[in-house]
């Protein structure tokens, strides 16, 4: 064998090994069957039993991120518990918010999944396209704003959690400067930054908030660097609208405070963790499955649940938070429950001094959904804001 052919063979071998690895690792798809299917004999003698409803989830990050995706995965496990052998769930992790997402949703639909959850804003366009082609499947899109006959959207009022975190932050800060690590400047995130600031200002009018954007939902090294810059700039209580525990861990290292976001993150920073603003998707997922099983599922709706429906909460409040502050948080929570407290109430003054909500006006969902301004007290500019 000449040197040349040996070399090209070797190259071929290494490339094919590479391709195999890539295929293996590309998408960590797992299928979990909640309960083993009933024995065949029983199925045959009993009156024809409906096959289980196949449900698929597309996750933005890894299920073990302990943040956004982790919360969705917990809810998936909760519905498996609740519905047992009536459903079969599967999920795909690390689905990019790109053209690749469309392929994955198409796969899910072709594999016979009849209820498909897309758990990130960026899946909106791909889901719309796939929903168009698979009319018999039902699509549920998290945090989106478009709906069709077989696609509906759902969201949680995470700004309520941010507001309650703000109350704690306003009382715990020594520098009166809060910091937020922002992900991508969309209304959802800006709403949370504003709610965090307003919550803090409700107990401490001197509050200022610094914001650093990392341009990604999940990028721990960047989140670390951003958190470090905020601390260097004088912020001493941090919140993040990103999905990892990196900001909390950076606060821990610097002996500052921070919050858990989306899931309970207390174990990642025993000293720095003040509380976790969590999202519980289980009530909505349970409703969606029930709707589908009972044939009541209808598209063209947008569901936006908050504290009242059990979708949002603040949990694991640290012992470092004084009892009177805990009472304030409990009061705000009770207020969100009965509707007497509103995170955004008139008069609401923007960063530029302009009144965004005049006396007598209330912040309706349309106002909240299009929030692209900082409230007074937030420093800096929104990156996409060309004005």
């Amino acid at each position, binding site marked *: 064998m000449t*040197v040349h052919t040996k*070399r090209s063979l070797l190259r071929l071998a290494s490339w094919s090994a590479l391709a195999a690895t*890539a295929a293996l690792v590309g998408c960590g798809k797992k299928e979990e069957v909640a309960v083993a299917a009933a024995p065949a004999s029983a199925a045959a003698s009993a009156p024809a039993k409906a096959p289980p409803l196949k449900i698929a989830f597309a996750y933005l990050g890894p299920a*073990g991120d302990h943040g956004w995706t982790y919360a969705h995965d917990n809810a998936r496990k909760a519905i498996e518990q609740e519905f047992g052998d009536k459903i079969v769930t599967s999920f795909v992790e690390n689905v990019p918010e790109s053209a690749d997402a469309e392929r994955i949703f198409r796969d899910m639909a072709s594999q016979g999944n009849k209820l498909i959850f897309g758990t990130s804003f960026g899946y909106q366009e791909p889901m719309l396209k796939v929903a168009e082609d698979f009319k018999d499947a039902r699509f549920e899109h998290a945090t989106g704003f478009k709906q069709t006959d077989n696609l509906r959207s759902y969201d949680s009022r995470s700004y309520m959690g941010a507001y309650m975190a703000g109350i704690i932050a306003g009382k715990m800060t020594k520098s009166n400067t809060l910091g937020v690590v922002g992900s991508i400047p969309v209304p959802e995130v800006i709403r949370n930054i504003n709610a965090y600031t307003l919550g803090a200002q409700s107990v401490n009018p001197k509050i200022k908030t610094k914001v*650093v954007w990392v341009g990604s939902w999940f990028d*721990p090294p960047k989140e670390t660097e951003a958190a470090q*810059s905020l*601390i260097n*700039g004088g912020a001493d209580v941090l919140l993040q609208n990103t999905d990892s525990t990196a900001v909390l861990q950076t606060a*821990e290292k610097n002996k500052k405070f921070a919050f858990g976001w989306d899931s309970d993150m207390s174990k990642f920073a025993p000293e720095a963790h003040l509380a976790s603003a969590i999202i519980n998707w289980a009530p909505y997922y349970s409703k969606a499955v029930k709707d589908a099983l009972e044939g009541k599922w209808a598209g063209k709706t947008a569901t936006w649940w908050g504290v009242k429906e059990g979708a949002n909460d603040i949990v694991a409040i640290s012992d470092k938070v004084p009892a009177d502050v805990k009472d304030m948080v409990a009061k705000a929570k009770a207020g969100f429950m009965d509707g007497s407290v509103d995170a955004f109430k008139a008069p609401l003054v923007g960063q530029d001094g302009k009144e965004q909500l005049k006396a007598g006006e209330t912040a309706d969902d349309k106002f909240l959904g299009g929030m692209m301004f900082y409230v007074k007290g937030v420093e800096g500019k929104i990156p996409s804001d060309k004005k």
Partner: protein
Amino acid sequence: MESFALLLAATLNAGTVLAIAGLGLLINERAGVVNLGAEGLMLIAAIAGFATAVHTGSDTLALLAGALAGGLMAAVFGWLVIWLNTNQVATGLALSLFGSGFSAFVGIGYVSEKLGKRPDFHIPVLGDLPFIGPALFRQHPMVYIAIAMTVGLGWFLYRSRAGLVLRAIGESPESAHALGYPVRRIRLAAAVAGGALCGVAGAYISVVYTPLWVEGMVAGKGWIALALTTFATWRPARLLLGAYLFGGVTMLQFHLQGEGVHVATQFLTMLPYVATIAVLVLISSNINFIKINMPASLGKPFFPGA
């Protein structure tokens, strides 16, 4: 002023990762070996280091495990390109892709792991000085070790006999071979040493810099380190300065935002690469400059007895 001191500290910390990996690649390239697999190699070292830290609780062992993983990967790379004479560019790229996939695969179980309490480093007396203390003397030991390594490597390359041999092999492996030096073995040693340093840098990222593991967390630092060797025209001291400069740019993009200065972060992220291209253009426009600085056999296979 206080915030400037902290920016400086963060810059040193960010630059250290690039400096250690860059020095490793510089050793490779001085011997005539280009390892484009740095990114993948660092990822494998990052998961190896993180896993070691989770199981043993020792950061030192974790960094050593990173070095071991990096060295092993580099040994495989070295065997392929030095003995089997595979194309260095293609093999390096393959290693890079393999590393990112393989590390993600073995790291699945570690995504939600956390490390124990992170130690706090503070040099007594010096660390308490105003301004200089927080800026320079409250860093992880690796920050100082990186500076020592730069000095050491400078001495090795330009003042020691072994360094002269290494450079000779990078310049003209045929002549070194004719003089009786074992070119392949020395190249392999250089590749392994360089890989081990990249490994230390990878483990530093997952154990010290961002103490957690996620897929692809090296996030292009391997590529920046590769760019750095060219940027530094293969000189250790310039490489260290370049590392701090590139590290400073990454920290500056967030610092400016926090201070309310509005600069497109994408622009700042791009800067290190633009700087590298500018240096490449500069050195390429003067043929003598390349002759003096760039190892002449860089990336070329060597066939003994050919």
